[in-house]
């Protein structure tokens, strides 16, 4: 893939112009860049030598990613999750200030995902910039501070998770045995209604307003639940709007 125009810079320079790129930017672009016949420790030694990182870091990063016990195993015998950990170890080898990770949770079990989340948070807390590219928005939401939404290669939005979720209108889930009557009153009040099975999804007003409308109309409610806006809702709201 070639850029149509412009150029990407990192730390103000193009990657190949950085003085010691491997020690400034750690990247995991795919979890398949291993020779299956090479032992994990040797894989990291190869990278450390080329990237001019101290070889003493090899054992350190193996410990960080929890692979010290499998360091002398050939990578061909690794599971996808172990390869993902090894890829992360490669990125950490040069002790870089910037980490760029493409789908880092791919192949990890739930325990591994939690471990990864804690590790990435701790790396960020050390003052490193951690850029994650992912389609698993629920996981992203739990891990990151700032989000950049890109759809079909184009920038859509940027902001904190909180500001982005706030920007999208929340909805309230309402169930009532008099749904038709309630719906009429809600529409009259200018609220937007969608139907989800036997429930109404109401947008445009808080749950307190909906409760008051129901009380005034003498409508019995079985459920009145504000739905928390997820990053996934933000993504669909922003990208669907753009496509319309």
């Amino acid at each position: 893939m070639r850029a149509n125009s412009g150029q990407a810079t990192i730390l103000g320079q193009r990657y190949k112009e950085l003085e010691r790129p491997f020690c400034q930017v750690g990247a995991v672009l795919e979890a398949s860049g291993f020779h299956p016949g090479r032992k994990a420790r040797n894989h990291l030694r190869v990278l450390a030598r080329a990237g001019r990182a101290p070889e003493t870091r090899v054992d350190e990063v193996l410990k960080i990613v929890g692979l010290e016990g499998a360091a002398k195993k050939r990578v061909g015998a690794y599971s996808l999750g172990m390869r993902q950990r090894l890829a992360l170890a490669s990125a950490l080898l040069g002790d870089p200030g910037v980490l760029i990770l493409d789908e880092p949770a791919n192949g990890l079990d739930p325990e591994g995902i939690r471990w990864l989340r804690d590790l990435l948070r701790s790396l960020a807390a050390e003052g490193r910039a951690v850029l994650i590219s992912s389609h698993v928005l629920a996981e992203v939401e739990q891990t990151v501070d700032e989000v950049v939404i890109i759809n079909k290669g184009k920038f859509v939005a940027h902001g904190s998770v909180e500001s982005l979720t706030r920007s999208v209108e929340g909805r309230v889930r309402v169930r009532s045995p008099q749904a038709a009557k309630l719906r009429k009153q809600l529409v009259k009040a200018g609220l937007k209604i969608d139907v989800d099975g036997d429930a109404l999804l109401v947008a445009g007003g808080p749950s307190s307003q909906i409760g008051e409308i129901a009380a005034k109309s003498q409508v019995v409610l079985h459920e009145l639940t504000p739905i928390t806006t997820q990053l996934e809702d933000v993504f669909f709201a922003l990208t669907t709007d753009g496509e319309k």
Partner: protein
Amino acid sequence: MIASLSSEWLKIRTTRTIFWLLLALCAVVTLFVVAGILTNNKADLTGSDNQAGAMGIGILAAVIALIMGLIVSTGEYRHGTITPTLLTTPSRPLVVVSKGIAAMLLGVALVALAEVFVIAELAAFLPIRGIGFALQGGDVARVLARTLACAAIWGALGSSLGLALRNQIGTVVGCFAWLFFAEPIVQGILNSHAIHSHAGRFLPLAATIGVFADTTGHDANRLSHLGGVFILSGWLALATVAALLLLGRRDVS
């Protein structure tokens, strides 16, 4: 440069491929030397010149260096390790050159190992037939220099061809098909009475034979030792330029 070269050398050393190829080299060298000692006439095994001729089997190291150069370079694409390689060494010319030099060093090391084996086997087996070990420094140096030149260039040639062509099986099979099947045919056509161009001597295998073989008298279809080195280096330069151009166009993703 040193960092990249050291990394490439470590890559060669840390897979099992090199171990099996070394084993194959030692086994074939032993087989040829011992069989030669046991089957040749005593007269053909006597004297430094004849015994140095047995060292010619060390040229097998060039074939191993070529295979290893091809496998290491194409393996980068096959296993996706080209991505971390280019992330650690963003200068693509540096990657091409480092790989080439590492493959050259491998060629040199393989020749050294093969020739040590040959000399040790000559020393051990010649007395069994009642022949004295007579190898002299000058003859050893002559064979060694030619074999080293071939192995170093073939190693680097394999490395550059691998980076340029990428497909592992296709490149290895293609190289061997060219060297041992297609080139002799092309040579035959070019050297035939109908064309009579002598251009066949500039082809890679013919140039290697020019470097390696003992020249007795003038042969218009064979290059001199130095001429062979020059032409083989030209093929290496061509493959290296192709690797630089094609690797330079590759996106890291």
